[in-house]
């Protein structure tokens, strides 16, 4: 959503224009749900958190100054709401685990597939296009993302599923530039591996 449209949207919201709110819902509600789900334990709680977020948006809209984009502002409200709720749930959250970028090195490709000198010993084979475009491929990817460690899952979901920019993700999840990139690299590499496994197994 462009900044210019945003200013207009904010004005209409303040004026109580319901269609403006409906537009915002269509634009951000699915992404908000997805992000909320990364913080709390069940879909029901996530829906609650998102509803509370929208209420926070409405209550705060008069104070919104447009220093950040509306999107960034809304997702900050979500993150705060979700964190508070997660604490109440006494669930220890992925986001303490966001540090795991610093943790053990996880190679993108199994070490055994390279020679001692670092050349491919077992190189990747080209993927069969027809199978790649098959309906099942998407569920293979979805499952691979579900199985990622929480911080990697959050970054891959926001960057590659939702299409957020690196800066938007860093702001929402409070990550350094390097950590954001390391988490993305590791998550993507695992999704690629899952695809490779699926595409090269016998049918």
């Amino acid at each position, binding site marked *: 959503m462009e900044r210019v449209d945003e200013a207009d949207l904010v004005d209409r919201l303040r004026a*109580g224009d*319901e269609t403006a*709110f*409906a537009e915002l*819902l*269509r634009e951000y*509600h*699915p992404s908000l749900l*997805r992000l909320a789900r990364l913080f709390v334990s069940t879909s029901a709680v996530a*829906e609650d958190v998102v*509803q509370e977020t*929208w*209420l926070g948006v*409405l*209550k705060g809209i008069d104070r919104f100054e447009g220093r950040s984009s509306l999107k960034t502002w809304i997702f900050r409200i979500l993150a705060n709401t979700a964190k508070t709720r997660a604490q109440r749930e006494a669930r220890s959250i992925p986001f303490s685990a966001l540090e795991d970028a610093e943790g053990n090195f996880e*190679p*993108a*490709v199994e*070490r055994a597939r*390279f020679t001692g*000198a*670092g*050349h*491919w010993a077992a*190189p*990747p*084979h*080209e*993927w069969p296009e027809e199978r*790649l475009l098959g309906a099942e*491929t*998407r569920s293979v*990817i*979805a499952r691979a*993302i579900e199985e990622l460690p929480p911080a990697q899952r959050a970054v*891959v979901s926001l960057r*590659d*599923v*939702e*299409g957020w920019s*690196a800066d938007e993700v860093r702001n929402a999840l409070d990550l350094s*530039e390097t950590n954001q*990139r390391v988490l*993305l*690299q590791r998550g*993507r*590499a695992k*999704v*690629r591996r899952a*695809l*490779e496994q699926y595409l090269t197994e016998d049918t």
Partner: protein
Amino acid sequence: MSIGIAHMSCRELVERVTSYFENALTVEDRLRFEHHLSGCEHCTTYLEQMRRTIELTGTLRVEDVSPQAEATLLQVFRDWSGH
């Protein structure tokens, strides 16, 4: 190497794909990356697979608000705007 760029191995290249996509490599590393790629069909295949992976991941996006959630939230809006 004739143009004086230190060698990048396949094993190193696969770790740097995201940095490459994000334009986060130093000028020198970018040159090493691209130099390696131009002579290595396996790494070219790997890079292409990462591209496809990202592209296909993007098709998972859920676009719709459930009608029930929309109805609930529009009611929230009405209550708020009628304050």
